[in-house]
């Protein structure tokens, strides 16, 4: 693969004496949607946090040819957009001001004084997530689904080459789950490497180019959705069987019964 955007070699993370992640090696170029799946406690969030440089790790992470550990915080923040679980906002801030925080790594520390570049990035992100009409609302007045879209808009506004999203579809109704994944798909198609943690294997199979399967801190499968979510993997890792089909030229994999 030419022009590798993200290269991870023998990544390991130990949290309070326990190896949460071991020997993970990856390599991706841009313009890809990668789904990161695995049972609870497999280390998905830890992998995402390690990639964002939020936890101490061993091994090497290279971004666009630069060692992550050699980059200053501000520069890391420009290369990775990170969307954590939960979409916490501690104060009842206004939607637009929250989305504008995505421009912080570009030096836009005050949402009231955005440059025209920052302003248009914020508007693009709000249009993509259909929250333009919510701009002046306080985040506490929003439904769970609306909050998730605000959080997604915030991370889209970073316009980083790599986007890391931890369960962006959790607590969304089916329509917004599909919209959120479609959004990430479109973002990837614009050239971004999007790595998305999800428990929804059906969404992963349908939208992702590549699926990574983590189990007990190790990468046990990676490849196209059919390869990575093979019957053997579904049985060994997830302990389920799956219904498989093709619908409108897309893969359908639906977990069906326990094994």
């Amino acid at each position: 693969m030419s022009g590798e955007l993200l290269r991870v070699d023998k990544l390991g993370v130990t949290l309070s004496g326990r190896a949460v992640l071991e020997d993970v090696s990856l390599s991706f170029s841009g313009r890809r949607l990668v789904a990161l799946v695995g049972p609870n406690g497999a280390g998905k969030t830890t992998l995402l946090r390690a990639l964002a440089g939020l936890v101490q790790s061993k091994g090497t992470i290279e971004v666009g040819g630069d060692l992550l550990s050699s980059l200053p915080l501000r520069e890391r923040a420009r290369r990775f957009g990170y969307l954590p679980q939960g979409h916490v906002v501690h104060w009842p801030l206004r939607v637009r001001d929250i989305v504008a925080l995505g421009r912080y790594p570009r030096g836009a520390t005050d949402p009231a004084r955005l440059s025209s570049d920052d302003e248009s990035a914020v508007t693009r992100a709000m249009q993509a997530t259909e929250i333009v009409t919510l701009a002046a609302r306080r985040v506490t007045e929003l439904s769970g689904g609306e909050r998730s879209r605000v959080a997604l808009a915030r991370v889209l506004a970073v316009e980083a080459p790599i986007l890391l999203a931890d369960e962006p579809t959790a607590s969304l109704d089916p329509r917004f789950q599909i919209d959120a994944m479609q959004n990430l798909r479109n973002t990837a198609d614009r050239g971004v490497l999007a790595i998305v943690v999800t428990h929804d294997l059906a969404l992963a199979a349908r939208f992702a180019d590549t699926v990574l399967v983590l189990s007990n801190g190790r990468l046990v499968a990676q490849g196209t959705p059919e390869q990575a979510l093979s019957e053997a993997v579904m049985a060994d890792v997830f302990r389920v069987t799956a219904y498989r089909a093709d619908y409108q030229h897309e893969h359908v994999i639906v977990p069906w019964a326990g094994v």
Partner: protein
Amino acid sequence: MVSQSATKPVYVTTVGLVVLVVLLALVSLGTGPVRLSPAIVIDALFGGGSDVQQTIIREIRLPRAILASAIGAVLGLSGAALQGLLRNPLASPSLFGAPQSAAFGAVLMIALGWADARSYVLPVAGIAMAFVSVFVLLGIAGRNAGLLLLILAGLAISSLAGAATALVMNLSPNPFASLEIAFWLLGSLEDRSFRHVMLALPFIVAGGISLWTQRSAFRALSLGEETAQSLGIDVTRVRLLVITGVALGVGGAVAVSGTIGFIGLVAPHLMRPLIGYDPARLLVPSALTGAALLTAADIAVRIIPSNTDIKVGVLTSIIGVPFFLYLIVRERRALAGGVA
């Protein structure tokens, strides 16, 4: 367009507060055993009036007014900064035991006889203890502290500081020293001179600057520490600068005024309905509100008729504690549920 309408109330409120603080300062300069009109006060400030009036205004009352504004401001700013850092409306220096710890440091110096009025021993000891207390508190609370944990840790630290202070008084060589310490602890701005202003002001200004420089980090911290870090903020550094700023401000203040509580808790709450929740925008208005509150309280203690003088620290606590109870009731659900 949205943003402009959001910043306008901030400017209006800030200008209004500046005017209020100036007016209160003028009233403060005119209040005392000899009542003087604002016109005479202004005249005396600029070298007019009689010698007696000049002495009263410029040497007796001016230091007191300056200290009230500066100490109130740094307490209001510290409260707003701590609330921003911890994303928590109940954070404040006094609930975290910072003034109590600073007082312990200062009292220890007084009891040991190391502090004479001119020396920097008192503020330095106060700052050191305030630093230790906030540092320990944030250490105990950890990265994503809930309300309950913060309040309990704060209670433990202020109790410990109180007990240590009591021990010092208990062991002090003569009852007069104990009495002097006890009155000093109540918090007062009486009989302070420009010496005291010079003692406290450098620390207060340094602490205030340290807190002010972190304002945009508080805004990003609204999204939680992890997201803030992913946006390029060195959260550990922000914490350290806030702890240092609060310690410098509160320690410097306590060294000349004794403990004055609850200004830091109340000031940001008074401002939120007017200018919103953005923790960065709250800093300056909270500081000005703190200045206005303490100046007003310091005027009140001179006007309220009583046999002995009421200490200003007592008054701020009497007003502040019911306010704190009101906040607890408002936050009851979060406290009971242990929601972070």
